C-alpha cells in the first residue's frame, strides 16, 4: 500500500517534469533580498517601464520597498501614488510600432512554464545572427527589441553586468508576482516547527494510551 503514495508522488513529479519542453532554460536562483529587488525596480524602470505595465503593483508599493517618495514621484509622472504602475506607451502606439500590445508583467513570474528561469533566459536569449538581424533563442517570435543589449555585448565584463541586471529584474518581477512570498516562507518555518512539536507529543501520547491495551 505504501507504493500507492509513492506512485502518487511520482505522478505529480512526472507531471511537473513534463512542463518544460523545447528550449532548454537557464536555471537561476532569484535573490529575494530587498537590495536586489530594489535594484530590479530601478532596472525595470529604465529598461521595461517604457512599454510594460505592472497592473497589480502600485507606486505606493515601491515606497513600501524603501524608495523615497521623491524618487517614486519621478517614475510616477502624472499618476497618483495609489495608481498601478502603467507602461508609458499607449496601446495603439505599441500596436503601430510592434504589432502587439506588450503584456503586463506583474504575474509573469507565475504565468509561464519555467517562471523565473524563463524570464531570465528570455532576457539573455538575444543574439545577433550572421545576417546582422537580432533574434531570440527562447522566444523566436518575440517582437520585443533586445531590452538590455545582450545581443551586441561582446566583452565578458559587459555581459556579466547585463546578466546581473537581468537577474535583478527577474528578482523584482518574482517579488511582484507574489509580494508575500518571503512572509509565507517565514510563517512556513514556524508552522513546521510547531507541527513537529505537536505531532511528536501526540505520537508519544498515542503510544502511551495504546500501551494500556497490552
Amino acid at each position, binding site marked *: 500500500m505504501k507504493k*500507492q503514495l509513492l506512485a502518487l508522488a511520482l505522478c505529480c513529479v512526472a507531471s511537473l517534469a513534463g512542463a518544460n519542453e523545447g528550449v532548454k532554460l537557464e536555471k537561476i536562483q532569484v535573490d529575494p533580498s530587498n537590495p536586489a529587488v530594489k535594484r530590479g525596480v530601478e532596472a525595470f524602470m529604465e529598461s521595461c517601464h517604457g512599454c510594460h505595465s505592472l497592473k497589480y503593483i502600485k507606486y505606493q508599493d515601491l515606497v513600501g520597498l524603501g524608495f523615497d517618495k521623491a524618487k517614486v514621484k519621478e517614475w510616477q509622472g502624472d499618476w497618483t501614488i495609489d495608481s498601478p504602475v502603467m507602461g508609458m506607451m499607449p496601446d495603439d502606439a505599441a500596436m503601430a510600432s510592434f504589432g502587439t500590445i506588450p503584456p503586463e508583467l506583474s504575474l509573469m513570474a507565475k504565468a509561464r512554464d519555467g517562471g523565473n528561469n524563463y524570464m531570465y533566459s528570455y532576457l539573455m536569449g538575444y543574439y545577433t545572427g550572421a545576417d546582422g538581424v537580432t533574434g531570440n533563442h527562447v522566444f523566436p517570435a518575440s517582437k520585443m527589441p533586445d531590452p538590455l543589449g545582450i545581443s551586441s555585448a561582446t566583452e565578458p565584463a559587459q555581459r556579466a553586468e547585463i546578466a546581473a541586471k537581468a537577474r535583478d529584474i527577474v528578482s523584482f518581477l518574482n517579488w511582484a508576482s507574489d509580494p508575500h512570498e518571503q512572509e509565507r516562507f517565514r510563517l512556513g518555518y514556524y508552522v513546521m516547527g510547531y507541527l513537529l512539536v505537536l505531532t511528536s507529543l501526540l505520537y508519544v501520547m498515542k503510544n502511551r494510551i495504546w500501551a494500556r491495551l497490552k
Partner: protein
Amino acid sequence: MSNKIMQWVDRRFPLTSFVKHDLSEYPTPRNLSYWWNFGSLAGIVLVLQVLTGIFLAMHYKADVAQSFNSIQHIMRDVNYGWLLRYMHSTGASAFFLVIFIHMARTLYYGSYRAPRELLWWTGQGLLLLLMGTAFMGYLLPWGQMSFWGATVITNLFRATPFIGDQVVVWLRGDYTVGDETLTRFFALHYLLPFVIIGAVMVHLIALHMVKSSNPSGIDLADKDNIPFHPYFTIKDLYGLGVFLMVYFGFALFFPNLLIEPANNIPANPMQTPNHIVPEWYFLPFYAILRSVPNMVGGVVAMGLSVMLFAFMPFLDRSKIPGGALYRPIYRLQFYLFIIDMMILGYIGYVPPTDQTIVIGQIASVVYFGIFFILPFTSKIEEKWLRNRGLPAQVEALIASEELQIAQKKSGGK
C-alpha cells in the same frame, strides 16, 4: 452544576447517549492500521475547505470583469488573503489525495463487501459531489485554464441524446462560458459543500450501523473492539499532525506547484492555451475520455470509469473476506489497477501524440478489463484457494455466512 445542566438537556435531547454511543464508546476494531485514518482526515480537510472558502468568499467577486482582479486583491491586499487562498487551492488537491487513499484502502481490503454496500455507495456519491464542487471552484479564478477547462467539460454534455446542444447552453446560461456561468458556478460551489456535509452524515450513519471493517477482513468479537475514545481520537490526531505537515509543506512552500501557469493569465475567450490540462485528480479520467475516438463514446467511457467503483460489491463474487489479504490474484489486480491509474494520469497530462494515444488506449482497456474480469477471476480464485485450504478463521466465517444465507432462504419459503 454542569451535571444538572446535562441532566436537564438529556431529558430533552439524547446528548449524552449520543456521544457515548457514537463517539466516546463507539466500538472500533483494535487492529485498524493507519490506512483507516484517511476517513477522518477527509472530514477534517472538508472543514478546512469550508472555513477557508467562506472567508475567501467574503472578498471574492463572481463577475467576469472582476474575478481575476479580486483573486489578486485577495493575494496581495487582504490580510492573510494569500494564506487563505493557498490553503484553499492546496486543500482541493489534499482532499482528492486523501479520498483516493481512502478509496484505495476500501478496494484493497474489500471493505465494500456485504453488509457495507450502502456505505460504499454513499461514498461514491460523495466522490461525485466532490468532483463537481472542485470542477466548479476551478472556474472561479477566471484564468485561462479555468475558462477552457469549464468550456471543455460543459461541452461533454453535448453527448446527451437528442438535446445535447440545448443542455450545454442551459448549463452555461449563455452560448459560451460567460458571466452567467461564472455566477451560477459560484453559487453552486458555495452550496455543494453543505450538501457534502449532509451526505457525510449519511455516510457516518451507515458506518455506525455496520461498523468499521478491519484489515483481517473478519469482523471481530466484542472483546477485540475498543472504545473510539481515547484510542482512536489520539490515533486520528497523530495522523492529523502528520497530514498537516505535508499539507502546509505544500501550502506554504510550494503552493504554485499545483496551479497551472496558464491560470495566471486572465481568461481570454478568443484564444485557447496551447496545452490545456485538468487538475491532476481528473487526469486518469480525462485520459480515458481522450482515448476514445468518438465523442459520445468518450464521454460514456469517462462517466463509466468513475461510476464502475459502485459495482464492486456485485463484481467481486468471492466469498473470501479481507480483500487482497488472503487473495493473491485480487492483490495482483489491485496493484495493476493502481499502476494503470498512474499511467493514465501521465497520459492525461502530456500533449497527445500518436504514441501516447496508443498507450492511453491500452491503459483504458486495462482499466475496464480489470473490472470486467473480476466476476470470473474472483470465482476461480475462490475455488482455487478453498481447495488449497484457507486459515481456519476464514473458513469458519465463510461457513457461518453461508449458513445465514441458507437460513434466510429456507425461512423465506
